[in-house]
């Protein structure tokens, strides 16, 4: 189990400190796929950095720490302080930009074994790597190639192979399929899932794509303006959300048979530079009351394993119907200029 205890991570900028993750407390069970969703700037990637232990200027951890539920070679518990030494042994990372994450002038096989985890047994490791990539649907000789000789999908498979080869307990994937087309995207996700089922590791997956989350994840964390606003089983997130933001996020997904126009979420998140008061979503929330603007809602466990940070979590279900009452798509004329008027309305 991975425990996050009141994580506050902030960036030092010329305008001062800004908390990109502001007090996140979580417990992530072992051997699940957990999705992290939220709009740009909500702190997803920062949370991933903190989880990976990649903390260095301008990012700093102002409070809290992560316990990974692992022990290192000296049988000390692994925490934020010593996670760096476990990189690619117990925790690995699949980057977003697979197309440019491999050194263009070095053979892939050399990039498999150029870190301390393989020191002294490179040949042996490479022989195993050949077998392993074959299992992942790549020809074994593909690791003798240079990155530019492989296609985007093959390269991402190589990245997955690198991240899983040492059988780490935890794999962080920061939008691993964003740059790929949907067909390749699906095959990569399936591959990742298959490996996860086989090795039983925990995968933390950041994605903008709610469809990906729905298909792949067991649990989901929804973030909004540096806060965790909802954390629950994926089914609950989609079927029975307890936070209006989650509802509005999932509601943007098209459903087969429902051809009503999707409604966007007007407005934008609050600037994290300003001091925050009350619920950060209040300004955009359809059910916000005075209490929301005064008092910050804590992340509370409403039903077993279902956390939400909303004063009116019980009212969210009722919101669903009102939100979905849009005009039918077939009745709405195709009109790109509508986007412009929506933008105007947002301002």
């Amino acid at each position: 189990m991975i425990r996050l205890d009141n994580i506050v991570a902030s960036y030092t900028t010329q305008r001062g400190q800004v908390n990109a993750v502001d007090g996140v407390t979580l417990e992530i069970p072992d051997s699940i796929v957990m999705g992290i969703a939220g709009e740009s700037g909500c702190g997803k990637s920062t949370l991933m950095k903190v989880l990976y232990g990649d903390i260095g200027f301008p990012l700093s951890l102002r409070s809290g720490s992560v316990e990974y539920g692992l022990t290192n070679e000296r049988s000390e518990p692994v925490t934020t302080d010593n996670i760096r030494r476990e990189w690619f042994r117990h925790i690995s990372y699949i980057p977003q930009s697979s197309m440019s994450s491999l050194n263009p002038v070095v053979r892939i096989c050399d990039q498999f074994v150029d870190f301390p985890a393989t020191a002294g047994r490179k040949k042996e490791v490479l022989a195993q790597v050949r077998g392993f990539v074959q299992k992942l649907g790549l020809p074994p000789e593909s690791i003798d190639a240079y990155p530019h000789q492989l296609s985007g999908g093959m390269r991402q498979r190589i990245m997955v192979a690198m991240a899983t080869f040492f059988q780490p307990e935890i794999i962080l994937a920061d939008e691993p399929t964003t740059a790929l087309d949907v067909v390749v995207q699906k095959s990569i996700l399936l591959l990742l899932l298959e490996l996860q089922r086989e090795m039983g590791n925990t995968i933390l997956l950041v994605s903008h794509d709610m469809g990906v989350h729905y298909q792949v994840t067991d649990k989901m964390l929804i973030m909004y303006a540096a806060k965790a606003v909802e954390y629950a089983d994926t089914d609950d997130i989609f079927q029975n959300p307890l936070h209006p933001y989650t509802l509005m996020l999932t509601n943007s997904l098209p459903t087969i048979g429902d051809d009503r126009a999707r409604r966007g979420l007007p407005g934008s998140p609050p600037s994290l530079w300003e001091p925050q008061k009350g619920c950060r979503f209040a300004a955009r929330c359809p059910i916000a009351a005075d209490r929301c603007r005064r008092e910050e809602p804590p992340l509370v466990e409403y039903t077993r394993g279902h956390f939400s940070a909303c004063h009116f979590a019980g009212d969210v279900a009722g919101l669903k119907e009102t939100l979905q009452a849009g005009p039918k798509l077939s009745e709405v004329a195709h009109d790109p200029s509508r986007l412009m008027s929506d933008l105007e309305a947002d301002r």
Partner: protein
Amino acid sequence: MKLLQYMLQRFVMYLLILFIGITITFFLPRLMPGDPISNYISQVQARAGQSLSAEATQQLRDSLAELYGLQGDLFTQYTNYIGRVVRFDFGPSFTYYPEPVSNILLDALPWTAGLLIMTTLLAWLIGNGIGLIAGYYNKRRAAAALEIVGILLYPIPYYILALVVILVFAYWLALFPLSPTFLPGPMSWSKSVSIIHNSFLPALTLVLAGFGWNVLAMKALAVATKEDPYVQFARLKGTTDRTRMTQYVFRNAMLPQITALILSLGFIFNGAIQTEVIFSYPGIGMTMRAAAGAGDYNLLYGSIILTIFAVATVTLVLDLIYPLFDPRIRLGG
């Protein structure tokens, strides 16, 4: 296949460059006013202190024309000239008559090539090494100090640098000779030591003058490269700084620097004249200057052609080994 095509292309280019260079060398002096033979004859007459008879002058004129390849019309001269270049035959030197120009050049070439290729490579290695460290650790103070070395050295004109080095090392400290004296005779241990000792000052000035630019260029490249996603990913894999600096940042950032090296090797003979004259170093530069001063056309021709040939050849060799450094050229996309 692609590699073969690349090499063939480079080789054809090489021949073309040689041809154009040699042709320009042929036509350029012919566009200048004045006639080398008349110049020579008037020099001889001035030295002899009396005028030669008309027949003797004409005889001299004819034999000189043959010597210089100035017989017949322009086209005949040109084809003869190309033939002589191919045979590496530039006739006798005029100053050191009857010593053939080719002998003089072959004697001088190793000095220049040895000194300049060595120092250019050294300046490249040291400069890029310092630039790499300064760029990779660009957030540290010590790295900024390294860069200042480059910033200070880069703009100093070569001759000032050379004079300062002479002043300090040959005059004040008297560690090295002011002008080199090389032991005659076959190669031996003491001879090689004396060569190194005597060549040290010109080499030092060339390295100092050359590496400032490399420091600055490599630093800029390294700073940009270390932010590239593949370097960042390598960091997240847990690779050591050393691995990332050499295998990731340097292997990529050096590619434009290799191009710069190829280009700078093209200019080494420019540097040769300055260096060799300042240090009285017995290379092609000195030979060229002496030839230009004495109106020794054959020798001048020969050294210019040799220069063209050397520069083109070095460029070809580097072009051919470039795919070793960049697999994207080797294997195509």
